[in-house]
């Protein structure tokens, strides 16, 4: 082609459609393109499961806080400074030796952004959304988790109105640990209920690796 430099190849249709949305909304004064980049930066770099891990670690070390968290999660989470879109109405469900909780959004991908960030890809996938309801133990196995048959598994469906967060059980061998150290044990998956927190041994291994 002799005109290679005279044009730019248009991107995929969907990218053009997003540019269309953005430019039309900006012209109408409905969005501020500068603020868009700020929002992207926040969701890409600043909001993530580390916030949720702080909530969990505090609940592990402060019984009064745990009580507040289980009775009014939205307010207790806000105490730590975490609130905002998709965190307006929170419920925290506690794992115990008898009960394991896990979270799904069967309709789309409702997820507590202020505490966990944006959901991982699999959380948004059709197989997870449908199968977790039909066969939660089977789904857990795919995450490498097998629970004793005696343990009850409860699946919670997050929605537009309210979102769930799992309070995992505190790992054994962490007595006397400071909250700041416990934070490093709390994984995203453990707060969705498809994983467990790291053990103290995991942490030592990581430090040695």
């Amino acid at each position, binding site marked *: 082609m002799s005109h290679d430099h005279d044009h730019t190849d248009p991107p995929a249709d969907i990218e053009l459609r997003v540019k*269309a949305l953005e430019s*039309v909304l900006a012209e109408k004064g409905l969005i501020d393109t500068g603020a868009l980049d700020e*929002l*992207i930066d926040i*969701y890409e770099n600043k909001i993530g499961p580390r916030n949720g891990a702080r909530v969990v670690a505090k609940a592990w070390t402060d019984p009064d806080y745990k009580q507040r968290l289980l009775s009014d999660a939205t307010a207790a989470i806000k105490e730590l400074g975490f609130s905002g879109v998709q965190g307006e109405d929170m419920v925290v469900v506690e794992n115990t030796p008898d009960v394991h909780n896990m979270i799904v959004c069967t309709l789309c991908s409702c997820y507590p952004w202020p505490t966990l960030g944006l959901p991982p*890809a699999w959380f948004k996938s059709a197989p997870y959304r449908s199968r977790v309801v039909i066969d939660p133990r089977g789904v857990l196995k795919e995450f490498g988790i097998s629970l004793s048959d005696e343990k009850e598994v409860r699946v919670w469906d997050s929605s537009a109105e309210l979102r769930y967060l799992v309070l995992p059980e505190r790992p054994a061998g962490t007595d006397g640990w400071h909250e700041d150290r416990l934070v490093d044990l709390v994984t995203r998956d453990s707060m969705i209920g498809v994983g467990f927190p790291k053990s103290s041994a995991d942490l030592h291994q990581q430090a040695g690796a």
Partner: protein
Amino acid sequence: MMLDLTETADGRTFDHPWQAHAFSLTVQLYKDGRFAWEDWVRIFSAEIEAAPALPGESINDAYYRQWVRALEVLISQLGFAPRDQLAARAEEWRRAYRNTPHGHPILLANAVCAPSGTHYQAPLRAPIAVSAGTR
């Protein structure tokens, strides 16, 4: 069906910048109180149901394809812009790309007229055409 537990390659939230833009457009409108989140979930979940992942499509590509369509529906339902206006604008952007020399910023104005410089000519300082009179 087994679950695909693959995380995005570098652990980033979005696979492509357009996904980040579609997401943040929606969140900004919501934060400004332009719609109720329940309405978004209603439209988005209907779109997910109606247009499931295609064979070979990654989870994020399917998810944000559904997201973008849902956003177009929301925008038109809110009366901000009808779907045909959005489609026409997308075509304008396509023309803008085609008219923009490689390496230059893509401006919507280029859809109508290629940027000056691409068809630059030295000033003629003379008529560009003359039709001789009979006198």
